[in-house]
């Protein structure tokens, strides 16, 4: 395509999803260092009326500093080539062909919407939840606000050893007064205020040296007001394999530091505080127990075995039962199939090479790209998506340079907006989001809270419309 990317004929790119990976992709395109003169129009779609993905709906309410990352996305959104179309769902309001009719390239930044399952008996008992639903609920995600969690039991169990598991343990134990200063959803604040949970047991399949917590998340667990963190000293005595793993440097600094932190926790001993977080290692759930709802969990003891250089947890015959009234599984997110795209069921991702989507027959799907979790799987932290998006955008711009871009039928924003007016008259523009944002911040101000979130689609759409009046 000659002269594509100029004022006369801007490169038009659709991005499906407005979380970190989508925004970094938009930023790298609009402020390309390798192609400073490139004229690009970026249209970002989100199925929610609000942008920022897991920064709004995933990052824990007591991590306001991390949420401050959104100021970078606000700056990207102010670029003249940027448009936001919220409350527009891919596969429902717009489809594969629609986007390809109006854009030269489509970047899927949809993340990983569902959770992985344990595959054990009792998993579907009431009281057994994916952590993702609790996280969406306390963050005011409209899909989860109707959920009702029962916190009337003295013990909760969290399965998993990553940062989401740490977030859940913290949210279940934070004192009300501290939670009430955050942007936690109102319904969650009220329900957690009534919580009778005294103890949260966190189960790790492998040993302390293999836990996936980052150092700051693990440190935080030991610093919550009026909460004891309990680690059995025997659990942090390293097995020979783990010791060797740590000493040879095969493990990173993060793992070594985690061990130090856990050894310090083990030396503390309980101090009779109001709540407890108990970190257990080398245990796997084998069944959730209960008649009408969760009453306990049966776990087995694991041992580590070296299998081709990686340490695997293998179950042993030693089992025990923990009484508990609620269980959250936090063993990973999983992507879902998208209209018009190939999908790898095993990994829950879209097959790709450096961000270029590759079809079932191993041929390139020209014009289709992926970033973030749907590209590489649900790993890494926010910043990981910046480098990830750079790779995809480098690929896209190389394709542009090579003329390897299909000309769409109607590469025009006007035509797209005509389509949206018809399909999705309730879509939310960036100005609409700014009205929502203003309303939420104003609501929080009298209470010293960063914002009070609107948590239903209707409330959000009402607030977005207000700017017009």
């Amino acid at each position, binding site marked *: 395509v000659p002269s594509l990317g100029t004022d006369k004929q801007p490169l038009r790119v659709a991005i499906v999803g407005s979380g970190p990976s989508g925004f970094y992709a938009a930023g790298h395109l609009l402020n390309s260092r390798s192609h400073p003169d490139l004229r690009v129009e970026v249209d970002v779609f989100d199925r929610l009326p609000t942008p920022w993905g897991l920064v709004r709906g995933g990052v824990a309410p007591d991590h306001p500093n991390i949420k401050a*990352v959104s100021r970078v996305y606000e700056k990207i959104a102010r670029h003249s080539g940027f448009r936001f179309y919220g409350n527009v769902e891919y596969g429902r309001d717009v489809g594969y062909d629609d986007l390809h009719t109006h854009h030269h390239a489509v970047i899927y930044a949809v993340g990983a919407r569902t959770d992985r399952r344990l595959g054990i008996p009792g998993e579907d008992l009431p009281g057994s939840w994916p952590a993702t639903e609790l996280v969406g609920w306390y963050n005011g995600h409209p899909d989860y606000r109707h959920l009702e969690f029962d916190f009337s039991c003295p013990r909760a169990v969290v399965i998993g050893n990553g940062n989401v598991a740490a977030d859940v343990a913290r949210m279940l134990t934070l004192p009300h007064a501290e939670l009430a200063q955050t942007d936690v959803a109102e319904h969650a604040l009220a329900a957690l205020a009534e919580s009778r949970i005294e103890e949260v047991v966190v189960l790790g399949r492998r040993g302390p040296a293999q836990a996936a917590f980052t150092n*700051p998340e693990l440190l935080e667990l030991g610093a919550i007001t009026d909460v004891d963190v309990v680690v059995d000293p025997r659990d942090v005595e390293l097995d020979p394999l783990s010791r060797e793993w740590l000493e040879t440097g095969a493990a990173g600094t993060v793992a070594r530091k985690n061990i130090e932190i856990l050894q310090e926790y083990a030396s503390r001993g309980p101090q009779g505080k109001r709540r407890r977080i108990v970190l257990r290692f080398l245990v796997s759930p084998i069944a959730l127990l209960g008649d009408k709802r969760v009453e306990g969990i049966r776990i087995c003891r694991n041992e580590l075995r070296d299998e081709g250089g990686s340490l695997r947890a293998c179950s042993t015959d030693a089992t025990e039962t923990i009484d508990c009234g609620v269980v959250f599984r936090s063993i990973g997110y999983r992507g879902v199939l998208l209209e018009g795209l190939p999908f790898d069921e095993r990994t829950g991702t879209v097959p790709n090479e450096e961000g270029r989507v590759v079809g079932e027959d191993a041929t390139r799907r020209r014009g289709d790209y992926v970033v973030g979790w749907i590209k590489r799987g649900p790993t890494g932290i926010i910043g990981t998506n910046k480098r990830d998006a750079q790779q995809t955008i480098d690929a896209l711009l190389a394709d542009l340079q090579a003329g390897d871009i299909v000309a769409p039928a109607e590469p025009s924003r006007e035509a797209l907006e005509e389509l949206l007016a018809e399909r999705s008259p309730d879509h939310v523009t960036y100005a609409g989001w700014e009205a929502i944002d203003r309303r939420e911040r104003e609501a929080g101000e009298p209470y010293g809270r960063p914002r009070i979130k609107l948590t239903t689609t209707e409330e959000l759409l009402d607030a977005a419309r207000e700017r017009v009046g």
Partner: protein
Amino acid sequence: MTYVITKPCIGTKDNSCVEVCPVDCIHPRPDEPGYEEVEHLHIDPEQCIDCDACVEACPVDACFAEDQVPTEYARYTQVNAAYFAQ
């Protein structure tokens, strides 16, 4: 708080941290003036959001949370801040 880049960065300047810093607060970037001259990179304490991305990315363990900086590198907290105060 903030994060701090310390001595192991000297002679390395690997830039992995620059690529992953979600708020672009690590400078100078390779395309910025002064990059060749500086001994090591710096984190802007006013911009850092304490996300830990640089710690994970750094191949030489030069990045630390401010409250985790080893005593022998203590002065780097000031050195990082001073770079942006210029």
